């Protein structure tokens, strides 16, 4: 079966210019945040409220919990095994809940870490995606995550 985008290769664009992808991505994030009151870059899948606070959550960058892991090149494997309690600040209130790293993806200039948070007061699976962006391939070997959960500005996820 032919590729449906074959013509892209057949007809390379005249004066094709590489765009500042990071800038565009950030701008899209800001617009969607404004539009939906939702921080999409740290949006988690099947996002459900923590029973602890009984509210719908958004995740935004700030300081609270930290996972450090020095590496010798096998950082992803080591980090995948990491489990422990994480301190999450929810609207200024600090909550400590058990968590583990579920998945780590590394792209060209980005690392995506998905945490699974275990809330004993809820039957829901709570996953939080944490995105880090770097210039080119300058992704550090260690993981230093700071984040804060805020219930403000989010009513529902798409």
């Amino acid at each position, binding site marked *: 079966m032919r590729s*449906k985008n074959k013509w892209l290769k057949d007809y390379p664009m*005249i004066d094709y*210019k590489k765009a500042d992808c990071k800038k*565009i991505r950030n701008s*899209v994030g800001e617009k969607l945040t404004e539009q939906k009151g939702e921080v999409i870059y740290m949006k988690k899948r099947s996002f459900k409220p923590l029973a602890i606070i009984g509210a719908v959550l958004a995740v935004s960058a700030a300081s609270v919990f930290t996972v450090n892991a020095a590496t010798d090149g096998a950082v992803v494997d080591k980090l995948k095994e990491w489990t422990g309690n994480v301190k999450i600040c929810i609207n200024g209130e600090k909550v400590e809940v058990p968590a583990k790293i579920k998945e780590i993806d590394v792209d060209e200039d980005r690392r995506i870490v998905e945490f699974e948070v275990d809330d004993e007061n809820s039957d829901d699976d709570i996953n939080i995606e944490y995105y880090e962006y770097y210039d080119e391939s300058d992704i550090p070997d260690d993981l230093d995550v700071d984040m804060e959960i805020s219930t403000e500005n989010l009513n529902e996820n798409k």
Partner: protein
Amino acid sequence: MKDKRLILKLKQGDSKALNLIIERYSSYVYTVIRNIIGDYMSEEDIEEVASDSFVNLWNNSDKLSEDRPLIPYLSAIARNAAKNRFRQFHTEISFEDISSEPAGRDSIPELIENYQALSLIYDAVEQFNSIDKEIFIRYYFYGEKLEAIAKITDLTLSNCKTKLCRTRKKIKVYLTERGYDYEVKK
């Protein structure tokens, strides 16, 4: 991740899919917009229009079909966003003048933005001879100027215009034969 899977995930509201689409196609969308309004807008404006296009894609992801290519739809969204931005800031000159769109109403961009019609247009384009296909794709999917297309295809500008005009007519026939009302209904 292939486009098909990205579209499926986008339709499910997965923001990671949107990020990947931005990474994959931001340069394409940027170039399309720059081709259309680059002479009249700053680089920052073009980036703004590009981000508007991806926001539009996110907001209309339910219209997408994973069985169809994403690029023509992205190009239609980008073209429309470029047109809106141009009209917002330039009243002294019409968009039709700068985009060398035909004097009469050109329904193709609107049809491309209509995902159902786009599917038919895509099939129609596949049946054109290579030169007609190239002119059509460069003009409508890449936003390239007819002067530049004429140069790269080694045709005169008027020959290029004629071929594009004939192509539009062929698309009209193709759509009509398949029961599609060529005139865009608002």
